[in-house]
């Protein structure tokens, strides 16, 4: 018995040894096999690059499937309605800008931002014409303080005081300066009704072409201030306020939506009809997830209907700020 044991022992040990080595070396994470790529069929896939700090505003035309223009969001501060009867002034919401009416008419007396925090307003994200921060300034000659907001790196761009002096069918007359009076500038802003707005930069103290002509684009990719529990800078899509409307449908799948559905939709002309909710930041994975089931129907200023849905927010290197979508004319 004992002798047998001795004979068997080395074999037993050898076997167990091999088994244990298997345990040591053979257990490892499985290799992967590639999955097949999807077939896009006859839908058009497009993408734009706002960069991961969302510094670009990108104007896009669905009909030609092209980016019409792009600009750094810091290229302008405020914009002036360009229609002949227009008087409204909007803030560059992509920089989280605010404005407040000081109630004062003496330009040199306004020198600080005391109390600004309590009365400051931002433009309604919907673009409703009666809900701008500056409002109807025509009957008074009040001085406004403008908070220029932040650059894409989070640097505050300072304050300006501004007085809107007059507006007629062709131009605005305004005066602005830094709070200490430096850079005191009085200029005329010309209207051109082929555009929605004429844009002004406090940095260059001059107007700039930002938006393309209003009939040339449908949607703009930009950051904008949304009224969440506190005003929060979101990244999304605004529609052209010139004859454009849109609606979200998540009941049908993207492929199910056809031209015959169009009549049943009541499209909205809110600028945020597409908005930012087609993606969500997922804190558990620290990444954005996309909701491709949110389909958007867009009617452009020519009355042509499109459907689109987003399929990504990252480029091929995993950088965020790259909305990617599928679109099709209905």
């Amino acid at each position: 018995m004992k002798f047998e044991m001795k004979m068997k022992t080395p074999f037993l040990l050898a076997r167990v040894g091999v088994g244990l080595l298997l345990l040591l070396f053979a257990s490892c994470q499985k290799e992967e096999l590639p999955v097949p790529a999807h077939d896009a069929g006859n839908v058009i896939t497009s993408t734009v690059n706002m960069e991961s700090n969302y510094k670009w505003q990108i104007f896009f035309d669905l009909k030609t499937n092209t980016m019409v223009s792009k600009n750094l969001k810091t290229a302008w501060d405020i914009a002036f309605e360009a229609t002949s009867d227009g008087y409204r002034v909007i803030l560059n919401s992509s920089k989280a800008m605010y404005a407040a009416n000081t109630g004062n008419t003496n330009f040199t007396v306004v020198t600080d931002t005391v109390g600004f925090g309590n009365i400051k307003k931002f433009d309604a994200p919907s673009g409703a014409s009666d809900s701008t921060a500056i409002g109807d300034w025509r009957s008074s000659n009040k001085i406004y303080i403008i908070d220029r907001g932040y650059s894409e790196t989070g640097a505050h761009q300072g304050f300006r005081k501004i007085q809107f002096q007059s507006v007629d069918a062709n131009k605005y007359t305004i005066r602005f300066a830094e709070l200490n009076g430096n850079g005191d500038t009085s200029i005329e802003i010309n209207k051109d009704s082929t555009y929605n707005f004429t844009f002004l930069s406090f940095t260059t103290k001059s107007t700039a072409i930002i938006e393309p002509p209003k009939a040339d684009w449908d949607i703009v990719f930009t950051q904008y201030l949304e009224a969440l529990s506190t005003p929060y800078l979101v990244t999304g899509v605004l529609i052209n306020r010139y004859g454009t409307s849109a609606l979200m449908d998540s009941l049908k799948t993207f492929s199910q939506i056809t031209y015959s559905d169009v009549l049943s939709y009541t499209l909205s002309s809110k600028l945020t009809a597409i908005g930012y909710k087609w993606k969500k930041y997922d804190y558990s994975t620290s990444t954005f997830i996309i909701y491709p089931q949110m389909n958007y129907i867009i009617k452009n200023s020519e009355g042509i209907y499109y459907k689109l849905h987003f399929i990504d927010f990252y480029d091929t290197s995993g950088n965020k700020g790259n909305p990617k979508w599928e679109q099709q004319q209905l």
Partner: protein
Amino acid sequence: MKQCIKKMKTQRKIIFIALFVIANISYSQTITVLAKSDKSPVLFAHVVFKPINSETKEQVVLTDTNGTVTIPASILNLRSQILISCIGYEKLMDTLILNTNKIYYLKEQNQVLNEVVVTGQYAPNSPEKAVHKIKIIDRKKIDAMGAQNLRDVLTNEMNIRISQDNILGSSMSLQGVSGENVKILIDGVPVIGRLGGNIDLSQINLNNIERIEVIEGPMSVSYGTNALAGTINLITKKSQLNTIETTINSYYESIGHYNLTGKVGFNKNKNKFTVSGGRNFFDGWKDGDKISFINNKPQLADSNRYQQWKPKEQYFGDLQYIRKINKLSLNYKGGYFYEKISNRGYPRSPYGETAFDDYYRTYRIDNAVFLNGEIAKNKNLNFLISYNDYKRIKNEYYKDLTTLSEVLTENQSDQDTTKFNLINSRATFSTSKDSAKINYEVGYDINVENAYGLRIKDKQQQIGDYALFSSAEYKPIEPLTIRPGLRYAYNTVYQAPLVPSLNVRYKIKNNITLRACYAKGFRAPSLKDLYFYFVDINHNIKGNENLKAEYSDNYSLTANYSKIKENRIYKIETSVYYNDIRNLITLAQTTGSEYSYVNIGKYKTLGIQLNNEIAINHLKISLGGSYTGRYNILSETQNVEPFSYTPEVRSNVMYEFKKINLTTALFYKYTGKLPGFTVDANNNISPTFINEYHTADLSVSKLLWKKRINLTVGSKNLFNVKNVPAFASGSGHSSSTSSVPIGTGRTYFIKLDFNLHSTK
């Protein structure tokens, strides 16, 4: 036999005298000492030969690995009194003329009586005599549970709740207080690497651990920061019987755990040298996984690539050298640990062609030198100096699943390195004379910690803590021990609190012991609390350099009753406690959009627990329950009750079939529903909860091949607990969830341990 080995440490001086004696022996007649229960040899039993009516000197000899001593030549043929003793066994005395071979059988003492604790003690002490209530988790339990790491073994402890974050790991709460207030030590050296305040318990492997000592309540006088809710001290194995010992431990669990560790120890004269190392691998788990054994077939990169419990690979190695210098032991320990967690992301909607994959690599390097022992009779020195280094690197890749190519993402926070290191030195001088009215301890504790991270101000910060502490055990009358203690610290960053404690132990009768304790505990603000810096367009969070320590007042009362009658032991223990924690460090909105850490929170817990233990021969049963109340801070402003209560029940049953070397064990725990409240922005109060669950493990182990092989098979998580329903609504960044991960379902395990040794 095992008990004997365990107690070796305290008996070393005698052993060395004895070894010296053996060297002079040339032949011949022997005495063999065997255990009465299973007739196995009793090793290192002390055999004292005392010749009667003779000038010949008394001789002490130790039994060898066969349980045998050779009768010293000087005593041969003399009528002598012989006394055989070994810890774990009852003493045996006989008088005879020594001239023949003789066998003695020693009767085992009951095991419960033979435990030793060191945490917070002046010298190794029995838990019965300690003024603190110290719970021991011994190797037997660790083995019977098939526990691989600290998380595994703590799942069966009362008053401890384990929670799982699949990236940060396993964390715990003790007495209802979160893990950042629990100090974890290995041989008295603090474990570092707290992420979000918690140490990942699954990174603490138990291969070299002999026992775990758990103290509930503050030990801040001795161990400083974090030791507020409790202290867990893991004691490594230091003794070895044979010249060369080799152990190989292998473990397989049906959800894909593959562990292999090995150890070689050399023990010669006054030197002992041990090398150990191993690899643990886990292939990940998600609900619906099937049992598999080494299946390395490549898989399609579809949704199956995502695992809820992440795949994990650990490599580790340890060195230990111990040298005896008189009654002191000089000990060097070095350790290396590497862990890689792979988080293959879920294929991204809608087409599943890309995914974000994260890899988390943790590196730990630990070095420590200890000098422990008696410097004079009943005067003890415990010195240690250690350097611990911790590094965690996160990398994120963006993977194209159609081509399997991947690129590192450019987002700065996706690639992150966190580093900590700690230089710790502590020393205590203590007296431990049993008959003295007063024994005392004085000591110092120095901790210099560095932290490095992307979101720490200036990327790097240092904090130094220099503490002196002292305590005394005063015995005005024999059954009463009063131990006051005090700690004073100078801290380089904040004003450290003065920490007092008072422990009282009173033995009413022979079998009833009362313990009362008041102690202050504290948690120093962490380097993150002090120096966090995260400012971007949507965030403005800054640490606060003016923070004070969180502190607590803890009151506890414990009563023990124990009755021992031959082979039966009955123990009952009940305790109540109350923790009142102030100055809790909380993230709060300070001005406008700025957030910072402030000392505004408060928290309380209270509880009662009851535990029974019965041992009859080889059957051991324990059954206990606890009721823990957690404070609802909302009760100060809202109409909710001040405390929410959670019950727990726990039971162990172990039976040893001594004759066939078979042990069976059952571990059960019921963890009750954890209720709470939350309030939303509109002041609506809603209840939150984590549902109750039951866990149970069952195992059978058998010693084979002359005890060289220990085979254990068992099943873990018999109640098949996976994700437990929970509701926690929140605002801002947190979101409501419908379940929390608790377990990975019912699993089966097999554990095969080899113990090979030779004596030269």
